[in-house]
């Protein structure tokens, strides 16, 4: 438990099984404040399940999940975890299709969360400015008034990142943020994420090795629900076991 102190996220010995299948097998992971961490691994390595555990969607069978060195995330609801400052972007972009781009950001914006309060809530001037700023960042200013359902796939990805920004989380979890993006979009996204990571901790799950290289962060390789290797991209790429898992023998 000594390492938990001072970390933003601390996973120790986390296991999850579904009907006998071990999705996570005694997984341990530590993320420092302000760190950008990339997680790679073949299909079924447990990447999505790990995010589910951190955000409260799935409860682990055993193991500790601590946020900010002290909050036990396994006891919190999804809403509480989000309010405490953990944001998540899904693999498949999920935006609210029947709301406008602006409204999507409005709902995500940090602030009032109580049911009766949101009934009467109004956007303040600073909040409007903040939304405008995010719209500019994600290049959707021109489409602010349109339904999110009309956006292209890449734009939806960006809107989702924008929603994450609006939430202003201390820890961001990004599940394949550049899936389905063009090369140019991918490059812009990488730039954006590196910028974001300066102010907060980010965990990126990615398949695209080119993109991982651009992020230039510490890399963790997951395999069969536990950590296989950890270090710089060059370091893990040289690891025998990683090569075996990826290439198969």
């Amino acid at each position, binding site marked *: 438990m000594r390492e938990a102190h001072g970390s933003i996220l601390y996973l120790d010995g986390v296991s999850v099984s*579904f*009907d006998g*299948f071990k*999705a996570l097998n005694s997984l341990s992971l530590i993320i420092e404040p302000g760190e950008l961490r990339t997680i790679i691994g073949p299909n079924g390595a447990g990447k*999505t399940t790990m995010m*589910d555990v951190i955000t409260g969607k*799935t409860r682990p069978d055993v193991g500790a999940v601590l946020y900010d060195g002290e909050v036990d995330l396994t006891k919190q609801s999804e809403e509480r975890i989000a309010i405490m400052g953990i944001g998540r972007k899904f693999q498949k972009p999920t935006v609210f299709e029947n709301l406008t781009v602006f409204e999507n950001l409005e709902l995500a914006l940090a602030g009032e969360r109580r049911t009766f309060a949101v009934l009467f809530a109004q956007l303040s001037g600073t909040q409007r400015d903040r939304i405008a700023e995010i719209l500019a960042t994600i290049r959707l200013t021109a489409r602010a008034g349109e339904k999110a359902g009309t956006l292209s796939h890449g734009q939806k990805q960006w809107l989702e990142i924008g929603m994450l920004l609006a939430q202003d989380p201390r820890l961001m979890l990004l599940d394949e943020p550049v899936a389905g993006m063009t090369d140019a979009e991918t490059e812009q996204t990488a730039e954006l994420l590196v910028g974001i990571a300066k102010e907060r901790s980010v965990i990126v799950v990615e398949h695209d090795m080119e993109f991982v290289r651009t992020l230039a962060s510490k890399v963790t390789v997951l395999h069969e629900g536990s950590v296989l290797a950890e270090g710089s991209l060059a370091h893990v790429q040289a690891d025998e076991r990683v090569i075996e898992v990826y290439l198969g023998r």
Partner: protein
Amino acid sequence: MSRILAALGVLVALMFAPLAPAHADDAAFAAAVAGLDQKSFPKRAEAVATLGTLGHARTETVLRALADGTLFARKEDRQVVIGRLSGDAYSLSDAATGAPAGSAPSGELAKIIANNQMRGQIQDILGRFLLFSTDAEDRIRAADQVLSNPDASAVAQVRNALKTENEPAVRQRLERALAAALLSGGGTTEERLAAVQTLGNTNEPALRGLIQRTAANDADDAVRAAATSALAAIDRRLVFLDMGQNLVFGLSLGSVLLLAAIGLAITFGVMGVINMAHGEMIMLGAYTTFVVQQAFRAYLPPDLFGLYLVVAVPMAFVVAGAVGVAMERSVIRFLYGRPLETLLATWGISLMLQQAIRSSFGATNREVANPAWMSGAMDFLGLTLTTNRIVIIIFAAAVVLALAAFLRWSAMGLNMRAVTQNRSMAAAMGIPTGRVDALTFGLGSGIAGVAGVALSQVSNVSPSLGQGYIVDSFMVVVFGGVGSLWGTVVGAMSLGIVNKFLEPYSGAVLAKILVLVIIILFIQKRPRGLFALRGRFVE
């Protein structure tokens, strides 16, 4: 009061009457017959009781005449005679001897009237004559009659019967009957004690009442104590029997629920289609049964009638299944992935089906007869089980097993499981998913139709028959766990049993309400039911 008087009369009569062998003293008999001609009913009843204890050969003739209203007293000499109307006058015979006694017009005769109490008394006595019948069945029935309506007046006859009885089954009953009669009065202390022992294993409410009275009123302390402990043992046993009875009732209700829900376990559980017209598939099955029954009545000899249900089962499957396939192809397939819309559209179809049946068969209940082989009852470890209950339980089990076997081993069943587990993969492997969908839905509907055949035997066949089952069957499937055939079986059975165990305390309606509330609360705890699928891919 009059009963007690009659009993006292009998006691008195017993003291004076010699405990007669098969042929009683003619004089005593004649005196008793003369005793019938008295003003007061209690005294007449006394005379009847005396006749009963004498066991004379002519007792039956006299008592029958009294019961039929052909027993008279001739006004001029108060001779008791039996009259038979011939022309304007009665031809008479002496009641005590049977000798002819001339004839007389009705004006010269006074009818000896029996009141209801006496009629009952006469029936008991006449019934006891069967104790000496040559037919063992008759003797058993006579002994049972004494046993269910014990009376001290029967002691002598039962004793007599025991002397000659050789059949063990009859003897056993006669001994119990004697014990009951002795306990009702007339037995010595030892006899009463022995009687309590003999009857201690009873389940009959009448005998339990007798022992209870003995426990409270008997003159002897030892008899009272023995009766008290026997009563406790009986009550303990009755509690178990009661539970057994509830269990059987529960299983039979559970089978009805299971039959109603099993088709839904396919359409909702396996395919995920909310078919609100499911109840109407049951209703169609019931109406098919009705039509088949009418056809049997009209075109086939009556001794084949009992077989109509056997023909109705496949017919109902085909009719309901065909309607199901038509529904799937014309409406439901356009709504896959939109469960709430499916719910509304199928509800609309259910309304139309109901109205179609109402327009063609009328709004009133149709009569569907239970075939002879389904009526009757049997005894099992002290429980009375009606045959139709057992048939329904067996039928439900057969349907489930057949369905499970079909899904497990047939090629079609394999296709169905493949399509429901991974549609696109199944399609890629060349399984015609559209046709499998239609047939799966048809299977679920056909099974519902088959259930309708069974349910036509236990509920009213009317256009709204299906409506009564829709909430229940959805509850069963949701409670058991969607997608699990065994969950549906366990769900149906446990709901049936819980319902029947609640009923004695709360009444039928409140039990049903309570079960609904229990399910609603249960679903809060386990939203996916008893046998839930769990995993990352379940959403």
